């Protein structure tokens, strides 16, 4: 970490890194920023500095998005990909034979795919995800924003409706014993058997 501390991640440094990401035109440049931000993020988490962690996370995601967009461009025009912008007035580069591969760049196929998908997320949605105060942004979460909503399963709709029924019928304001008081024996047996299983099931993935 070059002796950097999470506390040393001030706003000015954040802005600087954002500018560096915007200005970058080679994958390895943004990959380097991304790796530094990632290391910083882990360090900040261990130090329990949530603000620094969040900022580092944002830098990482911005770098990943930029890397994704550069990788997508590279894939579209493999002939000159990875060569960067030609100098003003300079000669046009010949299509190279030595374009760095993903392996050369230290990027996995999954990362390449995820980052390119993140690059396809509209700017407004991406910024909204980073600005969401209730939800820590993640690569998967941001990619998920562009995914077409899956149709709601019958069971999901049913469960949602029945949970709402608890509220609608006012059951939540009454005690469990009071609600069960008039049940006949076989009904009580069913409740005794199923209620703990349902309660456990509801709590399992929460």
């Amino acid at each position: 970490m070059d002796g950097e501390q999470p506390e040393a991640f001030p706003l000015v440094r954040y802005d600087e890194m954002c500018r560096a990401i915007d200005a970058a035109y080679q994958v390895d440049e943004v990959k380097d920023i991304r790796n530094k931000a990632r290391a910083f993020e882990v360090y900040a988490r261990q130090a329990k500095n949530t603000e620094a962690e969040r900022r580092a996370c944002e830098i990482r995601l911005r770098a990943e998005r930029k890397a994704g967009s550069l990788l997508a461009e590279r894939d579209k025009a493999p002939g000159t990909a990875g060569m960067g912008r030609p100098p003003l007035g300079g000669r046009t580069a010949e299509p190279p034979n030595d374009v760095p591969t993903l392996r050369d760049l230290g990027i996995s196929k999954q990362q390449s795919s995820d980052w390119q998908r993140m690059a396809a997320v509209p700017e407004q949605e991406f910024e909204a995800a980073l600005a969401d105060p209730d939800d820590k942004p993640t690569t998967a979460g941001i990619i998920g924003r562009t995914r077409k909503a899956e149709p709601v399963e019958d069971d999901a709709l049913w469960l949602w409706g029945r949970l709402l029924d608890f509220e609608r019928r006012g059951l939540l304001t009454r005690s469990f014993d009071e609600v069960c008081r008039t049940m006949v024996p076989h009904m009580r047996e069913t409740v005794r058997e199923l209620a703990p299983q349902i309660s456990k099931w509801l709590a399992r993935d929460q």
Partner: protein
Amino acid sequence: MKDKDASRAWQIVGEVYDRCRHQPEVSPAWLATQVLVEIGATRAENEIEYLLAHLQARQIARDFCRKRIEDDETAERDDLFPGTLQHRYPRKPAIKGEEPVYMLRDLMTDEDVAYNVARLRDEADSKLMHADALEAWGKDRKRAA
């Protein structure tokens, strides 16, 4: 059939049904036969007329059973369980699509009970799912606005 005649026919079916209220099983065909006996129509006079009259009476009886028994205007409130339990329920059909035979609730077998529970649940589930879907759609639209 004129409205007045239809109403009179319905009334006769009702009277026959009420007289036989405690009969274990009632079917539209049985009710139609009883109605024709009631009005004095006999098979011996004119076979074709009798069969056509029986067909018509059976149709009226089928309507009567569906409305009177299944939508039960005289449904009884059970002492123990909430909601209204019918006096009669359709017996589990031996062949799919056969005309329902309505039997007294107390005489139903466990199979008949299970058949009716499943039938009522199917009807209720599709309405419930419709209501849930509409509610979810409404909330989704409100949120998107």
